[in-house]
């Protein structure tokens, strides 16, 4: 029987006229890496900040490690760790001082030396925060998030704005945490991150969870279907394109079309023949293997990073 560490039911949050979260529900079990995947402004950060006790929800019920963040934030904060988005440390604070300072806030704490070693920051122990690179800052943020040996770790867009190499470094760190059986809630707008790191994913759009499950379950919806994205010289009709041989369905996407097909070679041949007959031309063609992006496109008709 899975043991839910975190339960969210029908969560809502609005800022003035903007409804940021519109009835989000999910639960996260112990030892699970749970991802909230969605475009910027989907309500992921608001949701996570409510769970961390940084913001009050307008409606719904939330339980994190058995605590209600609204009324028991004090107790809750001892049990969670977090790497926030758009945050910083004082420029002239040294790495080791930062770890010691944060360790001092908690009842339960890990040895700062161990974390320094684990996150490869030993050489930087006396460096000022302002002297660290983007990747080092993020590693320090993760080390601080773990300083109280938390039951749940929240990682809000942990690799946003980092270059690909540094991003892979952070993936390795998170994969290691996963091996340690840490419960992690991760928000991201990177498909790769969600697929690679998460046990389960909830896809969030416009303040709602549109679908959730394991990455594999989600991809099964588009299983065996390859996505061909084409741009044409002139517009064509979606219906005609979806009736081509080998094509299962067609969506209009960013001024082009996304064709889902079981047998790509056949679909391409029939597409080219069709265009020739119409006197139309192919401007570009891209073949994508099925990913969570397809799930998102199928459900919203938009790309994740539009």
């Amino acid at each position, binding site marked *: 029987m899975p043991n839910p560490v975190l339960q969210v039911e029908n969560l809502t949050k609005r800022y003035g006229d903007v409804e940021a979260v519109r009835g989000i529900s999910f639960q996260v079990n112990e030892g699970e890496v749970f991802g909230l995947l969605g475009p910027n402004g989907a309500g992921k950060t608001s949701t996570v900040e409510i769970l*961390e*006790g*940084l913001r009050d929800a307008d409606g719904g019920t939330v339980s994190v490690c058995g605590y209600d963040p609204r009324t028991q934030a*004090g107790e809750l*904060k*001892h049990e*969670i760790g*977090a790497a*926030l988005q*758009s*945050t*910083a*440390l*004082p420029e*002239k*604070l040294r790495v080791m*001082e930062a770890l010691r*300072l*944060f360790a*001092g*806030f*908690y009842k339960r704490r890990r040895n700062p030396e161990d974390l320094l070693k684990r996150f490869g920051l030993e050489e930087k122990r006396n460096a000022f925060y302002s002297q660290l690179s983007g990747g080092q800052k993020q590693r320090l943020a993760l080390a601080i998030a773990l300083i109280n040996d938390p039951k749940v770790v929240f990682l809000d867009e942990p690799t946003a704005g980092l270059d690909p190499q540094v991003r892979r470094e952070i993936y390795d760190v998170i994969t290691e945490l996963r091996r340690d059986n840490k419960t992690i809630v991760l928000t991201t707008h990177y498909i790769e991150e969600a697929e690679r790191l998460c046990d389960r994913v909830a896809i969030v759009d416009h303040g709602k969870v549109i679908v959730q499950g394991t990455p594999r379950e989600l991809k099964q919806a588009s299983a065996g279907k390859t996505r061909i994205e084409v741009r044409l010289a002139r517009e064509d009709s979606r219906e005609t394109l979806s009736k081509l041989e080998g094509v299962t369905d067609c969506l209009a996407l960013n001024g082009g079309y996304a064709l889902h097909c079981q047998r790509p070679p056949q679909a391409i041949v029939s597409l080219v023949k069709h265009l020739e007959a119409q006197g139309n031309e192919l401007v570009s063609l891209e073949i994508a293997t099925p990913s969570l992006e397809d799930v998102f496109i199928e459900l919203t008709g938009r790309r994740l990073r539009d």
Partner: protein
Amino acid sequence: MTNLLSLTRMRVRLALRNKMFFFFSIVMPLGFFFLYSAIFAKGIPTEVQFLLGPVLALNVMGSFWGLSATLVTFREQGILRRFHVTPATATDMLVSSILANYALTLPTVFVEVLLAKFLFHVPSLGNLASLILLVSIGTISFGSLGLVIASVTNTMQETQVLNQLLWLPLIFLSGATIPFTYLSKTVQHIALFLPATYLVHGLKLAIFNNQGPNQLLLSLGSLTTWFLLTLFLSSQLFRWEPEAKIPRKAKLYVAATAIPFLLLGVWEIRYGRVIAEEKVAVQRLDNAEKSERRQKQKEKQDNTDSDQPDDSKDP
């Protein structure tokens, strides 16, 4: 308690690594001290003693600058929100700011007092208990003003504008720069509504008139009240998030804080105790200078008298 101490230690450390801190909290106050003691008081011990109160008050009052700027920077850069996700509370943040500010201001005050005593040889430092109490309550209450400024402004620019707007009347009307008795009656009356006036006045009486804490209840009481009010205000208005709005009740609270000083000002204008005491202090300075001058003349005369016979012996 540990949170409070760790945060205080961090703030002190960060300040000591900050060049702005060195300039505004050490170089500038000491600059003022030498300007007052060596130039305005011409190094005359009694005058240095007379001006020591205002000079210390300047140092104590100035502490709100750095404090408000640091806290606003912390909020703007998202540093506060990182602390928000830990068990550290708003009270920890506020009180540690005040404690760090106190720990950072006191050494300069101490150095100024030592310089006054051993470099300018002031006749006396007055009542030390009063001096310590006033400097302490002054530092924490003006630190607390810094917290309120940090709470009611949204950006660093706004903070600096408000700091300037407050700083000028604080230093020019309170008697910290222009002696209180030189101000016109109207300006004196305006000054009686400012908490700063009671700090400058209290320090002057403590140092120059050797008054004990029991004689300085007006200054001590008004500054303590002000501290409690500003601390309450800052705890009500504290914001962790850069984009958080100032609560609507803020203006109401700020107005409520002003009420005790409105009453005090009206009462002071009616009974005129501060103005009278300031006049007495100036008179004491005049008398002291006159008697010093007389003493010197007498000494000179004695010297010439005793020189005379020798002169006459000479051919």
